[in-house]
């Protein structure tokens, strides 16, 4: 099945260290179109660091990134965006003091033929996209800091899908949200999956992502413990991977698997 297709993203033998500490050590993960891969592990397991290499926030020390089977050079966030990689950060990376439309288009503003900002066109598009994502959203004129956590998250997600992302990275997308808003994000992920977008979900809490993910990749101490399809493993087995690095029989072990 998936093995016959070219992966959308393949990260091979990625390593990065900060001041002698191997934050990510020889890690390999992949992602196919229309698939949700959950990247799990404790705080400090290296999952955010690994994914920040893909989104261009960090530069890898070694290893390869392949997009659609071709080697990709990702040196900064702008490069990543060129490959259709969009990231939604844990810390809700929005500029608090400008409005939703300005945030949606931050770094890629629409311009009139005079080279000025086309605020009206941006607001129109923002209204359209936000209407699809979150029909209750009405506060287009206010700075984003006036919005609730869920509304800010929908702005961040809208920004990612506005530019036809093919690869979406969601770093703890529901960490700042209430139960209802979390459910909304879940719905949204299913919808994006149908459109053929590949999604990396990063979380340290498997309950958040187990029902949404097709596969899980588990990291521990900067290494990949193993990969498994969610239908092949139970939550307890995945917990064992996260905590002990113990790989269940139906999972594929990685370099970080517990040696028996």
């Amino acid at each position, binding site marked *: 099945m998936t093995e016959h297709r070219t992966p959308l993203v393949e990260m091979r033998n990625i390593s990065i260290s900060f001041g002698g500490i191997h934050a990510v050590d020889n890690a390999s993960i992949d992602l196919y179109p229309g698939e949700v891969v959950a990247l799990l592990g404790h705080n400090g397991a290296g999952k955010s660091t690994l994914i920040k290499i893909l989104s261009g926030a960090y530069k890898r020390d070694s290893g390869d990134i392949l997009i659609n089977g071709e080697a990709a050079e990702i040196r900064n966030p702008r490069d990543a965006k060129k490959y259709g990689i969009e990231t939604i950060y844990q810390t809700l990376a929005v500029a*608090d*003091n*400008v409005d939703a439309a300005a945030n949606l288009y931050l*770094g890629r503003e629409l311009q009139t033929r005079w*080279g*000025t*900002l086309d605020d009206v066109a941006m*607001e*129109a598009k923002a209204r359209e996209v936000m209407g699809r994502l979150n029909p209750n959203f009405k506060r287009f004129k206010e700075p984003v800091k006036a919005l609730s956590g869920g509304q800010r998250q929908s702005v961040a997600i809208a920004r990612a899908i506005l530019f036809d992302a093919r690869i979406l990275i969601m770093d703890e997308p529901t960490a700042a949200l209430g139960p209802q808003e979390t459910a909304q994000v879940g719905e949204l992920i299913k919808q994006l999956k149908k459109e053929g977008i590949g999604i990396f979900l990063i979380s340290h809490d498997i309950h958040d992502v187990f029902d949404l993910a097709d596969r899980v990749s588990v990291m521990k101490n900067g290494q990949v413990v193993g990969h498994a399809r969610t239908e092949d493993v139970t939550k307890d087995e995945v917990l064992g991977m996260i905590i002990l690095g113990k790989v269940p029989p139906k999972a594929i072990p990685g370099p970080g698997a517990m040696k028996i």
Partner: protein
Amino acid sequence: MADTLQSSTSGGARQAEANPVTRFFRATEIDTRLLGMVGALLIIWVGFHIMTGGLFLTPRNLWNLSVQTASVAVMATGMVLVIVTRNIDLSVGSILGFSGMIMGVLQAQMLPQLMGFNHPATWIVALAGGLLVGAAIGALHGSIIAFLNVPSFIVTLGGLLVWRGATWFVTSGQTVAPMNASFRLMGGGTEGSIGATASWVVGALACMAIVVAIINARQQRKRFHFPRRPLWAEYFLCVLSCAIVMGAIFVANSYYWPVNIARKYAEANNIPWPETGLFIPHGIAIPVLMAIAVGIVMTFIATRLRFGRYVFAIGGNPEAAELAGIKTRWVTVKIFTLMGVLCAIAAAISTARLNAATNAQGELDELYTIAAAVIGGTSLAGGTGTIAGAMLGALVMQSLQSGMVLLGIDTPFQRIVVGVVLVMAVWLDTIYRARAK
């Protein structure tokens, strides 16, 4: 008809229970903070007018006030962008001094030798030289801040000392005078004003521009079916803005040339001296026009261009801006370069006005510029501030000083008052912001 429908649905239930005053401000979208500043300014003006026994609100004093404000107002527009990105520039006074000295030496010593005495292009070359020097210094500061990661406070504190010292070295401390006659027009005065007719023309153009801008904004919103302001609010804004513009021009045109200058002018042009005296209006001063032009251009940059959007986004969340793919370091360099250019423009105004370039030119201006920006609502925490607010802040500062001079208050006490007002203004602003949340 459609207009009222749209706006009433967008406001929802909250609008129904609002009192008429709130409804009025919501409909006209007037910035209440800016309005508060205008209110404070009017209180200061009327207060001084009463205390000085009617000396403050005269065409002559208001006209002088506008000219005195021009230099700091020009620099304050740039300081807004600097502070919005969580930086500070302590070197603006010294950059003013240095680029002013360069312009002075160029036109008084170097260019007469190269181009001949009183060459018509002298002032242009001198000004261009000053602007170039200002831009280069700003770019240097910006690059050190952005690429070598030295805090802006330190870089510009160093710049404060370095450029003040460099100013001394240009002429070994000597004052350079006089300035070129055309250059001097940038300083205002009787010669450096555009007269009654031209002032009215400028006013008429400004009013037309305001009306066109309001109509254009409305049509844009209509095109995309956004909620619009009610029609009465649009009319109100048109009339109010035009009235303010025309009022200011009327005041500038009510300040006449001093008698002896008017008499000389009459003699030179063979005009018979009338019994009642010859009344030639000043009109708007050229430095004031320059400051207004700078204000318009800077507002355009801050609100209508990508660059301005990035400045505010960086101020709001530097990390998010970086992750969104904005080249934040280059934006920083551009901001400081722009600040350097504005310092040079301010230097042209103040050297022209003084008719000399001195060592001490622009000393303490960095503090007045920062104070103007902060009084004008620029938050030192970054992310918020308006160009118009900063210029209004400069006017408030200058009004205080000029009023105290009229009252005969000693310089040390003037400084105490200005210092107290600065702290009070920021405190009041903090309260306002806390309430607005």
